[in-house]
């Protein structure tokens, strides 16, 4: 038995933990959990916990439906919301086939595989997400349009701000779970908030995003409200994105940094950025996986539908933040299209694969775009060689389907399942008559 497993067994005993929740993520990015008692814990470490995966999204296979959950002892964490008399804990799991090989449908292992490939080139991949979300009075769509809890705006400090109080409690709980928060504030839209996590290695970040989504929802629910990570829940106000700051390290050196460059960006950093831009259209179906995601991407604000980069241009897909002098370690790029309803394991896998492809193929970074791309006409943008991201899930899936990079990065199983699942989501949407159509056409035709 490994030391970290002994640590878990002993902690469970000492703290009187009654239930251990084994967490994993389905292909769509929903958190799943199977709970075991302390008596089963040792066997869970030795042999894994066998369960039927056929009803988990993306886990079904033709021949075998059973899989093994192998708890990752280093992720053992007491749950701060458990009661004092009934402490419980969680561990993230890797999913295996019964012969103990990695299960192709497990997004966490897909990211682990991609990180290991990067590691073979001596790279470790760090990320820091900025997660936006809304608080609403209810999450029940039959009650009509979602009702925000306040009408405050960006950075507003309000006295009777219910939602800011919720955010504060959320942050305390995240900190108690070892998820350090860098900033948090009231965003532009009513009841919209942003929590920025500190950089960590991408696998931890993805685990942390899964935990964050649960904690945010849980605390809202306890106070009778509803938190939503839907990318565009309200008409007329900005939607929720998840900008991610990315950097590559080799040992302790940030390989994106070059102090002598005008942008502070090394050749490797430029190539990585070029890779991300070059493959952006292919990976968008995963970074923006809902029909609704594309309503956020079509608005003229913080959501960048154009494939370009700049230092200070909020209409560009990639931003290269201007840094204070003497901070080589904070060299990074910000990828601005993803939304908080994505599967973070798969999204990070693809962004990393795209960037690394840029490095291995020596892609050239196009010139910086300083114009506001929203103000240009279609022809002007085309003349500058600036392409838009896919405008709908349908288009994004078409582009993804032809991408060998996405297939390699996700593996055949997830690649094919994702396309099937999302095609069917699109066709359901396509055949649905929307309120827009009724309002617009019924009175006239």
């Amino acid at each position, binding site marked *: 038995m490994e030391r970290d497993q002994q*640590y878990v067994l002993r902690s469970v005993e*000492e703290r009187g933990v009654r239930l251990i929740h084994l967490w994993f993520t389905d292909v769509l990015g929903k958190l799943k959990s199977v709970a075991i008692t302390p008596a089963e814990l040792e066997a869970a470490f030795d042999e894994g916990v066998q369960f039927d995966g056929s009803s988990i999204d993306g886990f079904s296979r033709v021949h075998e439906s059973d899989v093994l959950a192998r708890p990752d002892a280093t992720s053992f964490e007491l749950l701060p919301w458990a009661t004092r008399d009934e402490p419980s804990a969680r561990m993230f799991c890797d999913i295996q086939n019964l012969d103990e090989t990695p299960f192709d449908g497990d997004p966490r292992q897909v990211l682990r595989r991609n990180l290991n490939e990067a590691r073979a080139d001596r790279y*470790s991949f760090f990320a820091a997400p900025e997660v936006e979300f809304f608080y609403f009075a209810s999450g029940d769509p039959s009650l009509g349009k979602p009702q925000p809890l306040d009408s405050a705006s960006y950075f507003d400090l309000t006295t009777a701000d219910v939602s800011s109080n919720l955010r504060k409690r959320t942050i305390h709980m995240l900190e108690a779970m070892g998820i350090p928060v860098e900033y948090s504030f009231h965003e532009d839209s009513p009841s919209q908030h942003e929590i920025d996590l500190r*950089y960590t290695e991408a696998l931890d970040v993805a685990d942390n995003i899964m935990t964050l989504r649960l904690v945010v929802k849980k605390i809202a629910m306890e106070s009778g409200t509803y938190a939503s990570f839907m990318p565009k829940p309200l008409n007329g106000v900005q939607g929720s994105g998840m900008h991610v700051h990315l950097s590559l*390290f080799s040992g*302790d050196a940030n390989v994106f940094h070059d102090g002598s460059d005008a942008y502070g960006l090394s050749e490797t950093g430029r190539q990585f950025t070029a890779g991300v831009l070059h493959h952006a259209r292919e990976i968008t179906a995963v970074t923006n996986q809902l029909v609704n995601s594309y309503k956020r991407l079509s608005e003229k604000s913080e959501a960048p539908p154009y494939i370009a980069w700049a230092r200070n241009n909020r209409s560009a897909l990639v931003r290269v933040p201007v840094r204070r002098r003497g901070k080589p370690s904070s060299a990074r790029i910000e990828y601005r299209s993803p939304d908080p309803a994505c599967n973070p394991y798969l999204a990070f896998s693809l962004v990393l694969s795209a960037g690394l492809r840029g490095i291995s193929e020596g892609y050239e970074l196009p010139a910086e775009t300083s114009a506001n791309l929203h103000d240009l006409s279609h022809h002007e943008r085309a003349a500058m060689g600036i392409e838009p991201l896919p405008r709908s899930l349908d288009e994004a899936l078409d582009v993804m389907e032809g991408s060998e990079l996405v297939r390699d990065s996700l593996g055949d199983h997830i690649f094919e399942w994702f396309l099937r699942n999302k095609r069917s989501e699109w066709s359901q949407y396509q055949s649905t008559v929307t309120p827009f159509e009724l309002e617009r056409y019924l009175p006239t035709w």
Partner: protein
Amino acid sequence: MKALLVFPDPVPPELAQTLDIGGWAWKAAADVTAARADEPADGWVGAIVMAGPDLEPALRFCRSVHNGEVDVRSLLLLINGGHLQSLDPHHDLFDDFCLHPFHPQELEIRLKHLFRRSGHTDDVELIEYGPLAMNLETYQAAIDARPLDLTYMEYELLKFLALHPGKVFTRETLLNRVWGYDYYGGARTVDVHVRRLRSKLGEEHANLIQTVRSVGYSFGRSRWG
């Protein structure tokens, strides 16, 4: 404070790490003269002698210990498999031996068996520092009597720091000693864990771990300083 005498100097990293994680205080010596000069006020707990590809220098050191040139009661010899056949004539020079490359857990059990039984050492099973208490036997930590919910690596990092109050460690040292020499992550991993530990210690006690600008981190203040 008592310490283990370890030969040779420098100590191979995997041995240093096992000793650190096990919570042993130790000092390295390149020869008998150094071992005598560095003897702690309370004496040596025992000695670990690790042979290189050539067994002879290690045996020479063992012989000096055996002859009483250094005051050490028990001695553990680490050898590689190729030395096994030449070991028998020298069995009086050591109290136990272990094959190298060793399994850290095996070595730790042998160390406990040999040196704790000899009554030479205070078991480092409780660390108390101001409001912080750590029980190394049960893996539990508490601050102001409030249990701390730590992950395994957070626990190991806090234990390592708390075993060496006042001492400044670079990120590289912490990475090597706590995570291990084969860990590929870079020193930012250390920053991330320190930040997590501070958030779990709570605002009031976050400053138990201090950032030493452009050097690394230290815990509390030295007992001697």
